[in-house]
């Protein structure tokens, strides 16, 4: 995916309350429902049920109308105990949640905002606390504190002190990325006081992260407290779900078949934990929009029935007819509308248009690389093989589609940075093309051909052993081109291949490509927003706007006699060499960017 979505995934761009609210989803509804019920039970329950301490001579009776959840060993009402215990557990949980969050804000946000030695020291401290196992430490501390001094607050403080480090680390990472954002820098330059920058510019953006950490701290605290109480190290004279379980265990509840005494407290803990975790799911979706549920539909891998294909032109290698692509979101976005294009053998066809006009969506759809919610709603894509066979690309079954990809049609993507897998060597990424498409080759033969492909694009074959991060941006893009030519495909689609590179490197790579095209005779579909560059290299140029092709003509004709007003506008927006400045171009009504990034 493209840069836009990565940016969204990192953090919301700027605090916007609507973006901060969780989206209504079944998970959120169930989670919030559980928590609301539990909170109500903890707050109002004790007022409704009877005295939890009252001892009766009906020890261990099964649930009945008088005692809905039966009685304990000493005849106490389990339901009444449960109400008080839920209150006690939630109380400790929230107490620890607040304290741990405050600590993590101090060590995570403040530290990383101040920077320098303070940050180093705070970060070291959190990391040390993170690797020292918490519960053994809590047990040791609790064991030294005399029973009479072990109140709820003491236990909560001990749990908070041993539990803040993880979220401090998360907050630190988030703050560091926010700190260098433009608007934060701007307010620092404007002379805002540091506490104000933290409170106004940074904290609101961290709210979703803070919220998940807070919720997580509550879950961890309730569980830890239950464990401690079960071991007899909990707060003195407190009634929590953990102490209840401890009494049940010491009264041999399970051995004597008194499940009604032992099971409910555990179920309540599990329900609270589950409810909070479900709420956290929804908050996570705010932080990382990629996690949002997408409606499940027919995937692009599934073929549609074959249609009769017509060969419009004997010299064509690819025909696109009436192709439409729609993003099936709540407000459908028609990213590609009724596009018809013909790519001829050995030709360079340029596709130009401003960002978000649907160029990339079109390119992906040709190879069926589009992903839900994008869907091809109409049209055909036909590949005319050198051997004379016509292939209906949209009707290929998954196996045929895989075989078609790369061997007939290869792609070079924009963003030289992310198109290569960071954990595999260049050799492995080139070789797996051959392992897949040319299974007969020997290992040595594969490696020889990978080396040759690199030499072809002017990269030293010794770089086969390099990892992508060890290569410069230009070199990575050359590797991508080498990979694209490995199987000598008949079509290569270049999607903004040189956008992220500096001009000199750009020129070098393009010259190389043109030379290779002359030698290997593949056809190129060249997509870019850089119209002057396109006019220089392309045989023909198609101008795209709002998903439609508005003009399709030979390059010299576009330069000399542009027919469509938008083409003229595009041409006019670039500064010419004669010194006139171009106009700033923007469509009157910018099309909403399709979800999932600029395609």
């Amino acid at each position, binding site marked *: 995916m493209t840069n836009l979505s990565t940016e969204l995934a990192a953090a919301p761009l700027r605090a916007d309350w609507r973006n901060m609210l969780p989206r209504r989803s079944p998970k959120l509804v169930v989670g919030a429902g559980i928590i609301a019920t539990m909170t109500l039970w903890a707050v109002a329950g004790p007022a409704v049920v009877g005295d939890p301490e009252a001892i009766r001579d009906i020890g261990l009776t099964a649930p009945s109308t008088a005692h809905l959840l039966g009685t304990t060993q000493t005849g106490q009402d389990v339901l009444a105990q449960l109400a008080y215990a839920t209150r006690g557990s939630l109380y400790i949980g929230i107490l620890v949640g607040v304290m741990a969050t405050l600590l993590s804000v101090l060590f995570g946000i403040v530290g990383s905002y101040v920077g320098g030695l303070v940050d180093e020291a705070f970060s070291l401290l959190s990391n040390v606390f993170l690797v020292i196992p918490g519960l*053994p430490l809590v047990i*040791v501390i609790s064991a030294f504190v005399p029973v009479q001094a072990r109140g709820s607050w003491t236990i909560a403080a001990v749990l908070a002190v041993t539990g803040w480090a993880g979220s401090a680390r998360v907050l630190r990472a988030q703050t560091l990325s926010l700190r260098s954002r433009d608007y934060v820098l701007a307010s620092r330059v404007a002379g805002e006081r540091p506490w104000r920058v933290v409170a106004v510019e940074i904290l609101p953006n961290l709210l979703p992260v803070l919220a998940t950490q807070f919720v997580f701290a509550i*879950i961890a605290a309730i569980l830890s407290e239950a464990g401690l109480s079960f071991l*007899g190290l909990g707060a003195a004279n407190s009634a929590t779900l953990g102490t209840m379980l401890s009494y049940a265990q010491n009264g041999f509840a399970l051995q004597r078949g008194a499940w009604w005494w032992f099971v409910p407290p555990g179920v309540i803990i599990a329900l609270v934990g589950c409810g909070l975790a479900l709420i956290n799911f929804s908050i996570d979706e705010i932080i990382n929009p*990629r996690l949002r549920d997408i409606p499940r539909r027919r995937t692009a891998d599934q073929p549609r029935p074959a249609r009769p294909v017509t060969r419009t032109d004997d010299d064509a290698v690819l025909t696109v007819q009436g192709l439409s692509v729609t993003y099936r979101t709540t407000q459908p976005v028609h990213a590609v509308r009724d596009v018809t294009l013909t790519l001829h053998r050995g030709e360079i066809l340029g596709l130009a248009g401003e960002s978000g006009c649907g160029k990339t969506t079109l390119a992906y759809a040709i190879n069926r690389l589009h992903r839900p919610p994008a869907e091809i709603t109409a049209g055909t894509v036909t590949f005319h093989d050198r051997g004379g066979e016509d292939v209906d690309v949209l009707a290929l079954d998954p196996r045929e589609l895989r075989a078609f*990809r790369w061997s007939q049609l290869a792609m070079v993507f924009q963003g030289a940075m992310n198109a290569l897998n960071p954990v595999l060597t260049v050799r492995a990424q080139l070789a*797996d093309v051959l392992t*897949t498409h040319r299974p007969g080759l020997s290992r040595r033969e594969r490696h020889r051909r990978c080396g040759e492909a690199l030499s072809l694009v002017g990269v030293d074959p010794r770089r086969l052993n390099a990892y992508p991060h060890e290569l410069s941006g230009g070199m990575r893009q050359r590797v991508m081109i080498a990979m694209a030519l490995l199987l000598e495909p008949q079509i290569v689609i270049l999607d903004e291949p040189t956008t992220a590179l500096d001009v000199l490197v750009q020129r070098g790579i393009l010259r190389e490509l043109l030379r290779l095209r002359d030698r290997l005779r593949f056809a190129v579909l060249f997509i870019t927003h850089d119209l002057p560059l396109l006019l220089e290299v392309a045989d023909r140029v198609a101008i795209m706007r709002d998903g439609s092709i508005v003009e399709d003509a030979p390059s010299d004709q576009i330069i000399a006699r542009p027919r469509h007003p938008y083409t003229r506008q595009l041409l006019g927006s670039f500064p010419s060499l004669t010194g006139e400045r171009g106009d700033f171009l923007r469509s009157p009504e910018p099309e909403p960017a399709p979800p999932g990034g600029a395609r």
Partner: protein
Amino acid sequence: MRYYLRKLAFYLVALWAAVTLNFLIPRMLPGNPVDILMAKLQQRGGSPDPATRRAYELLLGTDTHESLVHQYLGYLGNMATGEFGISVSDFPTPVSTVIATSLPWTMALVGLATLISVLVGTVLGVVAGWRRGGWLDSLVPATTVLAAVPYFWLALLLVAVFGAALGWFPLLGGYDVTLNPGWDGPFLRSALYYGVLPATTIVISSAGGWLLGTRNMMVSVAAEDYVLTARAKGLRNSRIMIFYAARNAVLPTVAGFAISLGFVVAGSIVTEQVFAYPGIGSKLLQAVQSNDYALMQGIFLIITVTVLGANLLVDLLYGLVDPRIRTSG
């Protein structure tokens, strides 16, 4: 190389912090543990010789006029030589012997259970995240219930169902006590058999966390450009899932191992208590219940050292799975 040196330095600092914490806690909190220990020792008929008293004093602090720095240095010396004093709850065994006999049980139990849990959780997470919206993925929210169940509660239920009611597994213990402990077939088989329920408890409670983390990373990674490239290359779906998506998605899981291990260790202490497992967790609680402070301190230290060691190991292995670490640091 710099990466490894930095990691090593960090763990040395963490170790020092843990050792120092261990020194400070008994001194900062109220009570006089040394006297309690000496009194207990006498009750058990032990003659409190000066060397034992000295070991206790260095470990737990005392009212003598010795300076804190002096005590600290003596304490560090004793820690380095494993001189923790004598356990009063296991009288007259030295603390170091108690630890040496119980630690292997815990390491085997927690180690194996964690390994299984990481494997199961990661594999399921990879598949759920890759087949997003599929049946496995729709079960993911349900795993939060498992993660929210207290270890000891689950352990007790497992014992009640599979131990007491069905009789498939023993109720408690680490091995058949009629056998002599040793590296022979029958004993190992019995240890494995006794370990099934405790290990199952740990796996059920912890696998959900691994699953969820991996699943979310898979969803994020599936949107990366290199996965798109892999699809455009016509690679087989399974190959893209493993070598392109999963290979990158597990990196944060490995990096976040430290946090997860803390939870597992916490859970296993409580689990051991339920099963009366002959491991270090049971010993720690035995020490707490009988005010055996020396044993308690020794065990805390050894647990911390083991966890630090495990984390160091994982950090070193991380260099193997992420090439970017190896060169830059």
